[in-house]
């Protein structure tokens, strides 16, 4: 299953709530302001890092670039995808949910 998140959360409670709702083996796709969550050293990145054994985290490259987050600033073990990669994820996952 594919989960899409387009906004960022930096307080631990909303990040934990999101991660608790994502099942094992699922993929989390971060787009728009959601990409801020993979910024190395942020509270959100620390929480995401602890969940990486259970889920795959993908982030949209153009949204990172627009917000000035360089490849070096992206936390480890995150997959950076372009628009085409995002389309592939949407095609490969029968069930998709966008968190608002």
């Amino acid at each position, binding site marked *: 299953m594919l989960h899409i998140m387009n906004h960022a959360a930096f307080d631990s409670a909303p990040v934990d709530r999101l991660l608790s709702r994502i099942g094992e083996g699922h993929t989390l796709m971060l787009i728009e*302001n959601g990409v801020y969550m993979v910024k190395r050293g942020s509270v959100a990145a620390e929480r995401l890092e602890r969940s990486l054994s259970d889920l795959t985290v993908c982030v949209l490259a153009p949204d990172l670039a627009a917000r000035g987050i360089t490849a070096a600033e992206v936390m480890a073990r995150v997959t950076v995808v372009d628009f085409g990669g995002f389309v592939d994820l949407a095609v490969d996952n029968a069930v998709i949910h966008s968190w608002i």
Partner: protein
Amino acid sequence: MTGPTKKKFLFVMQEAPHGSCYAQEALDLLLTTAAFGQEVSVLLLDDGVFLIKKGQQPDRIDSKEIAPVFLSFEIYDVRRVIVEQESLHERGLDQKDLLLPVETIPRCRIGALIACHDRVVNS
């Protein structure tokens, strides 16, 4: 008749750039206020600190440039850009990640800072 009085304005910005139009509209209002000779300061809280993150390339998502507006503040006599320390740290950011020199203050002093202005505009 008396001339226009000068007031101390504080613009509190809490939203990230590019995801919404909040920042663009707040900056339009801010520059207009400054152009009318008012004393204008800016306070960046929460995701608002991302407004002045270095290296933004908004053309990658066909979005408008926002960061350069902050670099034009000097021309408009906007002298104080204040950033909350905790907001930076929670987001993995440091002064060196920012486009311009700013004053940083701790969260516990935000209330007192806001209170010493005549008008507060939030976005």
